[in-house]
């Protein structure tokens, strides 16, 4: 059982707080992803777990044992770096065998372990080569193999796929997934790529400016983002945001343009304004004549249509507001078309304008 426990862990560089204190329990066998934009403190958090960075405040324990002052090699963790960090002057075999050699493991056992791992990763034919003679994907496999042979209790990955081209990245992502299913080792994975996070993670920790914004399953962070940042960060293309002001009838009117909405089923309290969020894929395009008047329907004009392949993106003008909608790529509307669109209340999100916190769903609060 390897549970990794972060107890009020935080990191400061001088006066600068790179990571604000937070709690987190990473469960045995869990694949946890740290997600966030560049500079938000993901690597710092991972490196504190690895022991490459000192822990400013809080307590780290791995498998129940306190780890704050334990050397990296004795933490039972193995790390895969973004730029692979292979020993360029050593063969693939020596790269993978290094940790075991340093542990003074018998040679026969090292050979067996490296051999088995190489087999699993399809590296058997390359064991004698130097890293320079490998492709990017193969190098990353060696880096992963170097981590696997040590049979660590925890795997740490720092953006392991960012240096690969798009196609290879998808392939390696799937391989990583299979590997995790097979080995079941507790893993912490850092990325700024939300697709990687959504596909790999059991749970995602979303960070923003050193602060943990939300911890939850991919489903949870997508369906019920805790704040505006998470809402905008998860999902591609990003969620549309519309600033609304309460009107005399307890309905809402957009600050820009003249979009009018009925009372919304959020716990708005006495708020006079809020920010509405609607995902591009949640804007329904109604077939001509299909408008039954149910729900929130609006007139829209297509300003620009971009075909992505399976999908198309529509730039819409809806009552003076610009909205992005994502529709099926077959026979999609084109620029200049006039449409009828619909929002589904259950797919809307509302946020506090100042704090950005998501508003709970509830009964509409009537003021007038």
């Amino acid at each position, binding site marked *: 059982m390897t549970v990794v426990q972060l107890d009020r862990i935080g990191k400061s560089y001088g006066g600068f707080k790179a990571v604000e204190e937070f709690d987190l329990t990473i469960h045995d066998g869990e694949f946890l992803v740290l997600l966030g934009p560049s500079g938000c403190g993901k690597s710092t958090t991972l490196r504190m777990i690895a*022991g*490459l960075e000192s822990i400013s405040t809080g307590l780290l324990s791995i498998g129940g044992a306190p780890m704050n002052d334990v050397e990296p090699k004795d933490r039972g963790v193995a790390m895969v*770096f973004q730029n692979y960090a*292979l020993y*360029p002057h050593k063969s693939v075999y020596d790269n993978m065998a290094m940790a075991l050699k340093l*542990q003074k493991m018998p040679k026969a056992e090292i050979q067996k372990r490296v051999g088995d791992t190489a087999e699993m990763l399809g590296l058997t034919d390359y064991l004698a080569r130097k890293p320079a003679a490998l492709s990017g994907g193969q190098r990353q496999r060696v880096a992963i193999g170097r981590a696997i042979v040590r049979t660590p209790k925890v795997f740490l990955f720092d953006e392991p796929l960012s240096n690969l081209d798009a196609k290879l990245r998808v392939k390696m992502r799937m391989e990583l997934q299979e590997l995790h299913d097979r080995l079941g080792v507790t893993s912490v994975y850092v990325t700024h790529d939300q697709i990687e996070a959504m596909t790999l993670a059991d749970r995602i920790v979303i960070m923003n400016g050193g602060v943990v914004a939300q911890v939850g399953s991919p489903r949870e962070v997508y369906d019920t983002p805790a704040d505006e940042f998470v809402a905008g960060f998860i999902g591609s293309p990003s969620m549309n945001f519309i600033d609304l002001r309460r009107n005399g009838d307890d309905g809402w009117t957009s600050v820009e343009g003249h979009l009018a909405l009925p009372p919304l089923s959020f716990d708005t309290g006495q708020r006079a304004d809020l920010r509405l969020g609607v995902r591009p894929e949640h804007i329904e395009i109604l077939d001509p004549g299909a408008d039954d008047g149910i729900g929130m329907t609006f007139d829209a004009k297509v300003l620009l249509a971009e075909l992505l392949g399976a999908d198309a993106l529509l730039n819409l003008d809806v009552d003076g507001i610009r909205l992005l909608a994502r529709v099926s790529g077959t026979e999609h509307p084109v620029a200049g078309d006039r449409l009828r669109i619909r929002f589904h209340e259950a797919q809307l999100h509302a946020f506090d304008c100042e704090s950005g916190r998501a508003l709970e769903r509830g009964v509409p609060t009537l003021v007038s």
Partner: protein
Amino acid sequence: MNKRPRIGLYTLVALSVVISFLPIVWLILTSLKNTAGIYAWPPQYWPDPFTFDNYVKIVTESPELLLYVLNSFIVALGCTLLTLTIGGLAGYALSRIKMRWGAVLMVFILAVSMFPPVSLLPSLFQNFLKLGLLNTYSGLIIAHAGLFLPFTVWMLASYFRTLPPEIEEAARMDGMGLMRIFLTIVIPLSWPGFVATGLIVFIFSWNEFPLALVLMTQNAMRTAPVGISLYPGEYAFPWETISTATVIAIIPILVITAIFQKQIVGGLTAGAGK
């Protein structure tokens, strides 16, 4: 495309090659002339008669030249090894340990080397006299190492900074200690830096004059530049002897440079990262 900058570049390169090689070519030509040829007016461009007499004469009549060259070699080699060892360790520490005053320290180290070596001579001489280091190889090696260490620390520290720190972090996670990382990872990866710096230090030490002159007073301990410059002439300055001896004295440097220059060019970090 605009080609003019390249032409300018080539011209500059050609010019600097000519300027730096002309004296050496003239030196070699001089060593192949006889005395009359050297003082001839108008000057002889091609030796006439073309003669190897000077070489024969110097080897047969002044065997101490070979001793000077050997002394230079021992001192330069010792100085290079000592400088690379200390400079490597210091440079590694300065490039990797985050120190509050790290940058100031680096500038300070460089500032030390701005004193002209001659200004160090009186106190160096006195102290070496007390310590019994005059006329010893280790004495001049230490003096030269002190002279060239700042340069070495700077060269190596900046080379180490170009290595991706993740390789060393991976080594730490694999279970290596600092010294092992330095010896088995950092040195092999910085080999071109070590060779380039070592060559320069070797040549500096080989050519260094004031300290070698003052700290090595016995004829048998003199280094090549000092020994050659002190060749006695009877009525005139013995140009033919000096130029011949100088040609002989630069041969070891040419050989060493030729051996190591391939290593400078070939970088070893290829394949470390993306």
